[in-house]
């Protein structure tokens, strides 16, 4: 008997904003408070060290916001009342990315986007192959392996959630994959910037590396911002290019799993791709087009860029609040080990690709 597995149109709850906006207030207030505390800490320490002629490395507000968030999450914890608002960090991230489009002329987007796309395509093939191999070696379930491969090759949590529905994976597998990707994203925040400085990478090259090597969008932007503002800008562009591939990869996996489980694919693939396509990428390109057409004055571009920084400030606080070591520990070690081995290899591969691309494209 022919049965059908449905690629459901409904997306998980976390991808939508609740209609009860009041429920968001406490969490958004907490994000703002942590972000502002990070900014105040950076400025106060900088003023103090300058006044006392002390030479200490400047710790950016980004890191303070993440550390304060982590501290709260892993000590007193996050009360239920704050959770809906904290979940909006992804909304602020995407709003910030769209606004940041004003800082790019379309020509820059095309040039850097083409370089990013080349790196992304190679990274995609290698990371999917590598994760699949590691999943087999470590005897992970095939669907968990697919989710880890999707998460590490495209855009972390969003890609895993999109793929989960498409390949009909278990909730448990998705939780494992998400936990592994988040844990490794947190690790990247503390490893990518020192490596970038150690290698004396330029803002452009480091930004490209952060955007192609760090999986989750929020962590990729934060890893870029921890290096420099200019690097964060390039990381956003590279990551946005990568995010644009989500539909193709998820569709590929949906077709693969359908064939493997003896099903046939019905329905419009174009419609599927459109549904999975991250719409904020279009918003980013649109604002960039407006900026290229000189729709905004220099002052207005500066205002839009600053609005984007405010949005990212809330995002970074959310990144910290989401890092919970107890939760990560509960998920078990094997998916984490597979993810870690794969991620280290992918970070190395993307670093090599970025350095080569930098020489070829003269970045």
């Amino acid at each position, binding site marked *: 008997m022919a049965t*059908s597995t449905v690629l*459901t*149109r409904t997306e998980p709850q976390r991808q939508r904003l609740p209609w009860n906006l009041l429920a968001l207030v406490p969490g958004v207030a907490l994000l703002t408070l942590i972000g502002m505390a990070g900014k105040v800490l950076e400025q106060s320490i900088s003023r103090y060290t300058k006044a006392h002629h002390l030479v200490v490395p400047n710790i950016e507000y980004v890191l303070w916001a993440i550390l304060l968030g982590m501290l709260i999450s892993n000590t007193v914890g996050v009360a239920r009342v704050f959770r809906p608002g904290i979940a909006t960090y992804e909304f602020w991230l995407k*709003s910030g990315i769209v606004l940041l489009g004003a800082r790019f002329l379309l020509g820059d987007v095309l040039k850097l986007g083409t370089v990013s796309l080349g790196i992304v395509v190679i990274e995609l093939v290698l990371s999917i192959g590598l994760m699949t191999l590691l999943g087999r070696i470590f005897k992970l379930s095939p669907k968990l392996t697919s989710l880890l491969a999707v998460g590490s090759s495209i855009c972390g949590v969003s890609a895993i959630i999109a793929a989960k529905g498409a390949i009909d994976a278990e909730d448990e597998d998705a939780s494992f994959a998400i936990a592994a990707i988040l844990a490794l994203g947190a690790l990247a925040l503390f490893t990518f910037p020192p490596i970038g400085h150690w290698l004396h990478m330029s803002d452009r090259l480091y930004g490209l590396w952060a955007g192609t090597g760090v999986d989750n969008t929020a962590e990729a932007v934060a890893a870029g911002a921890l290096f420099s503002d200019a690097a964060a800008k390039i990381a956003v562009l590279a990551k946005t290019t990568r995010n644009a591939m989500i539909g193709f990869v998820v569709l590929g996996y949906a077709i693969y799993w359908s064939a493997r489980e003896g099903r046939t694919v019905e329905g419009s693939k174009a419609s599927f791709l459109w549904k999975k396509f991250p719409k*904020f990428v279009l918003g980013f390109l649109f604002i960039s087009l407006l900026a290229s057409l000189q729709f905004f004055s220099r*002052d207005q571009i500066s205002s*839009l860029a600053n609005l984007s920084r405010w949005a990212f400030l809330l995002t970074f606080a959310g990144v910290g609040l989401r890092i919970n070591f107890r939760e990560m520990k509960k998920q078990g070690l094997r998916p984490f080990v597979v993810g870690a081995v794969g991620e280290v290899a992918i970070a190395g591969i993307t670093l090599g690709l970025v350095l080569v691309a930098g020489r070829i494209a003269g970045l």
Partner: protein
Amino acid sequence: MAVQESEAKPRSRTISIDTWAVILALLLAVLVRFGLLKHIGW
């Protein structure tokens, strides 16, 4: 067994977080462009 788009399922009426983000960003861009939001500092 066939994989298909879920035409039979009711469409979700809520707007995705991506779309909300684009709406907010475009709204802010319009406000800045027409001078209703000025000199946003950092």
